[in-house]
């Protein structure tokens, strides 16, 4: 009994020793900063002088600042356009690659290439491609279309950003292709016996079987695109592309308004949580899990 107790204690000691790096990091880099951030959002603080408590003032100011609504609009438009379109592109590429084709490996690599490039490189490449006299407009010219000024014209900045975001979305096929190959053949065979055509099979077998992957991409896509920073920062200072994280960055690290910036962070956090919750709620209407117990 004593031996067993000693073994138990030793195992517990080892457990805590092994998780200690994560645990210390959790306290210093996760939960500590979260609590601190919450309190900082109720202060006015430039980090060079002691903070002063201002209550809800940061939040009320934020909700009266037109620039905040600009950043909110841009963030939501960007997330709600690129995420669904990106999923469609990934799915379409997966369906293409799932056909019997020659050089499949070449096509695979080609479609995955844009998504493996660093965001900084992609953004600089496309700001060069979409220059008013750049290659992209030149290609449009071949079809008799006069291309816009893209990142010079405020009205065309968002379409430009969306365009090259979608260029990197093809890589999303990897999960979908694995999903397509995981659909058991007997389902299709059974449907064929019932006289189903290709579209019906896709609509009633393939789509339900892939729906968990769609949900995963939808949630991670919306969360990720709402946190877009690098692309917008590199493309320039114009407010017509301003997004929430960029607005936060400007306030925190250029104006040193730590309290105000923390309030932006919390508003962003709440918006992300709300959207994730909404998507999950809505998903119960269309996601099909094979192993699910129906109530």
């Amino acid at each position, binding site marked *: 009994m004593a031996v067993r107790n000693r073994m138990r204690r030793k195992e517990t000691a*080892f457990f805590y020793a092994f998780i200690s790096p994560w645990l210390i990091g959790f306290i210093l880099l996760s939960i500590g900063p979260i609590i601190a951030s919450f309190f900082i959002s109720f202060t006015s603080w430039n980090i060079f002088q002691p903070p002063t408590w201002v209550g809800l003032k940061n939040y009320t100011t934020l909700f009266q600042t037109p620039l905040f609504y600009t950043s909110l609009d841009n963030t939501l438009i960007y997330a709600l356009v690129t995420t669904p379109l990106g999923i469609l592109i990934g799915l379409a590429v997966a369906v293409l690659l799932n056909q019997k084709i020659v050089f499949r490996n070449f096509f695979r690599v080609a479609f995955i290439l844009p998504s493996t*490039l660093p965001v900084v490189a992609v953004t600089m*490449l496309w700001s060069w491609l979409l220059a008013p*006299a750049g*290659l992209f407009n030149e290609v449009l010219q071949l079809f008799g279309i006069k291309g816009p000024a893209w990142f010079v014209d405020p009205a065309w900045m968002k379409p430009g950003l969306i365009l090259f975001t979608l260029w990197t979305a*093809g890589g999303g096929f990897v999960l979908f292709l694995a999903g397509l190959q995981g659909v058991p053949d007997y389902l299709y065979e059974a449907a064929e016996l019932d006289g189903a055509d290709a579209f019906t099979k896709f609509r009633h077998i393939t789509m339900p079987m892939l729906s968990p992957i769609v949900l995963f991409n939808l949630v991670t896509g919306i969360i990720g695109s709402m946190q877009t*920073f690098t692309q917008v920062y*590199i493309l320039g200072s114009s407010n017509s592309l301003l997004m929430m994280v960029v607005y936060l960055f400007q306030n925190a690290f250029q104006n040193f308004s730590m309290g105000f910036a923390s309030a932006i962070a919390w508003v*962003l956090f709440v918006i992300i949580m709300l959207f994730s919750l909404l998507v999950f709620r809505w998903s119960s209407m269309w996601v099909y899990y094979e192993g699910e117990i129906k109530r």
Partner: protein
Amino acid sequence: MKTAQTTSATDHAKHRQLNGWRVFWKVVLYIVLIVSVVSMVLPFLWMITTSLSDNRYAMTFPPKFFPSSLHFDNYVKIFTNDNLGLYLRNSLIITIPAIIGQLVTSSMAAYAFARLRAPGRKILFLIMLSTLMIPGEVTMIPTFIMFHSLHWINTFWPLIVPNFFGNAFNIFMLRQFYMSIPLELDEAAKIDGLGFFGIWTRIILPLSKPVLITIAIFTFNANWSNFMGPLIYINDPKLYPLALGVFSMTNTGSMFTPPQWNLIMAGNMLLTLPMLLVWYIGQRHVYESTNVFGRN
């Protein structure tokens, strides 16, 4: 006999018709594939050709896809005229320790969560998973203030040290993999006199090579392409990592001096190629080990 023959004849016609449709769809399929592959690859090729062209040439209108002369010296210029050699060194100083830190600390925590029994294990595991949902923006400002008060601004520490505290995503992936290693191996090792530490280093780690390689790749990519982190913590151009350094080439200091796009694209290539290389070498392991999310 006669009826059998007629049915086979109609079957034949039907078959030919089907073949016609099949050929039509094949043609459509390949047209769609080729058009989309060209649009995927062309921008990348444009990066390569621009990086090899003369700057005056790069600025001509209309742009020409193939430069008339190849300037491989652009790849020398980025090291002599611009500081890309220094930026490359800085990136390596940050990235290599970051990979080591993540591998060691994440696999330690994962081993504990997968194999060691202790009070509080379940709740700590749930807490760890819930940290996956916290967006970095919420912790960014207090973390900056903490590093600022440690006088770590304009040093590499804020970019390296956080990697020595594990990462919830990595821990989760490794833990899922460890759970699939048979417990009998641990039991046998125990009988042979190995302790908990010995089981981790001698049994678990050697068996989890694909997942460890995957984590090394993810950590490399995240740190190599990190832009916001260096932007926040590093103001001294001598300390820029590559991602920030290449971006700084677009700032010529004057509105009237256009950036040298050929050199910028050469810098872009230098930033991109290591990631492509690492991905290409390691992709097999990535696919193999991301399968663990499907099991439990």
